[in-house]
């Protein structure tokens, strides 16, 4: 009976193409509960955002999925397979850009290829076709310290992308940017996401950013993080910048604002 049920569940997952499923994440940090029974999923080519207050445990959830921190309780499955605590299954962009100061942009973005065993020459060759798409043309031989915040994020994104897993975790990639650059980068990210076809799990505490980018949003509570609500964003795509002033957008915004407080 249970077996039958499992098989049915398995095929159901296949049918709607669930890329990533997080089940019942529960985690403590130094005896303090920071995550409590968090479950969610990410479909193929979907853009899903986790939104929650500062310090509620969002980055910890990503670290658990990526297998960087040992998981107290819970399960990660990718394409229906158990990947709990397994490293290297997702492309993960940290909250900090973490560019190595002594490597030029091209070598920083090639880091995943170098780690996989490519020579510097081979790796650079593979990076070049992507420089334009990621807006880094002309900057490839600069050092990170010579770049603006927006450029550094683009470089970090390209590096994440070069790890080439179909699931991409982005932890507040635009957190440190000014409003204008941020808005440009959001628009650009949508374009890139559309072209490279990846399933993106995104973290932010900016409501507008979450709505503008996402297909679905999970609203998290204060620490310990729980899923308060799942919000589907039915705004049409492609999304123009002006969409943030539309009535429908503001209705969703109000709803999430209320849900967060």
């Amino acid at each position: 009976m249970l077996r039958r049920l499992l098989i049915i569940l398995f095929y159901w997952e296949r049918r709607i193409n669930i890329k990533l499923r997080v089940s019942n994440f529960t985690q403590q940090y130094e005896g303090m509960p920071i995550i409590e029974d968090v479950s969610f999923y990410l479909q193929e080519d979907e853009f899903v955002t986790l939104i929650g207050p500062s310090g509620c445990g969002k980055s910890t959830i990503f670290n658990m999925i990526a297998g960087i921190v040992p998981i107290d309780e819970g399960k990660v499955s990718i394409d229906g397979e158990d990947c709990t605590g397994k490293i290297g299954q997702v492309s993960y962009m940290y909250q900090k850009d973490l560019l190595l100061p002594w490597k030029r942009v091209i070598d920083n973005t090639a880091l995943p290829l170098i780690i996989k065993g490519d020579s510097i020459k081979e790796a650079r060759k593979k990076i070049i076709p992507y420089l334009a798409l990621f807006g880094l043309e002309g900057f490839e031989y600069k050092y990170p310290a010579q770049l603006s915040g927006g450029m550094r994020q683009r470089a970090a994104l390209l590096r994440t992308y070069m790890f080439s897993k179909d699931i991409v975790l982005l932890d507040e990639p635009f957190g440190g940017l000014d409003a204008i650059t941020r808005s440009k980068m959001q628009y650009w990210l949508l374009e890139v996401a559309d072209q490279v076809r990846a399933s993106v799990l995104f973290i932010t505490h900016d409501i507008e950013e979450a709505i503008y980018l996402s297909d679905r949003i999970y609203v998290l509570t204060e620490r310990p993080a729980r899923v308060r609500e799942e919000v589907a964003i039915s705004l049409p795509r492609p999304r123009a910048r002006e969409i943030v002033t539309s009535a429908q957008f503001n209705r969703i915004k109000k709803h999430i604002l209320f849900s967060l407080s």
Partner: protein
Amino acid sequence: MRKKWGNIGNKTIPFIFLAAILVFWQLIVDRGIIARYILPSPVDVILVGMKILPEIKVHLYTTLQEALTGLMVAIVFSLLLAMLMDNFSLIQKAVQPLLIVSQTIPTMVLAPLFAMWFGFGLLPKIMVVILVCFFPLVVSLLEGLNSLDPDFLNLMKSMKANRWQMFYLAKFPSALPNFFSGLKIAATYSIIGAVIGEWMGGKAGLGVYMTRVRQSFALDKVFATILIIVFLSLVLFKIIELIQFLLMPWRRAINK
């Protein structure tokens, strides 16, 4: 305006000060306030220095050879120990306290001991150099290896990097600034270490030469040798600074 003065001053004031001391020194000796055989004047020292250059050359080479050999060996050993300590916390726990305590021992006092153990060849001198260079190198390397934000390592872990890749791609380069500060100290120590080793006896070397001229009360030659030792240390220091400049181009890029 005042700020500008301050900037010029920072570079020129020490030179003016040094020049003043030298002129004062020269005057004292020239006026006969202090006898020449007790304190030679700066001009005397430089003239003697040029005169003895041909005979001192072989000594200079010997000292340089000991210092550089010792320094190289110390670099290799300190790298090995720092890597071991960085990778195995048991070794770190066992060695770290000893390392800190050993720093308070003036290693130079071991020179006579080495002379007794290893004779009067190059080996005891090189041993002194290794010993005095080793600690500043290990300590600065360890500090450098620990200075990296651990999230860099987590990021690399998430890309399935192995420990060796994490070391040479992230940890080691991040330790370079600290390593070079340690290396500059070690380099100046290396010359002094070799000279002190030579004081214990030997065939050649600036220390050996110094002992000889001291015994014949040629104080001007002692001073000239000291001058050469200082000069040698400074040159070594500058060479290392140049290597650092060449090896760390990203630092230059930031300053531009």
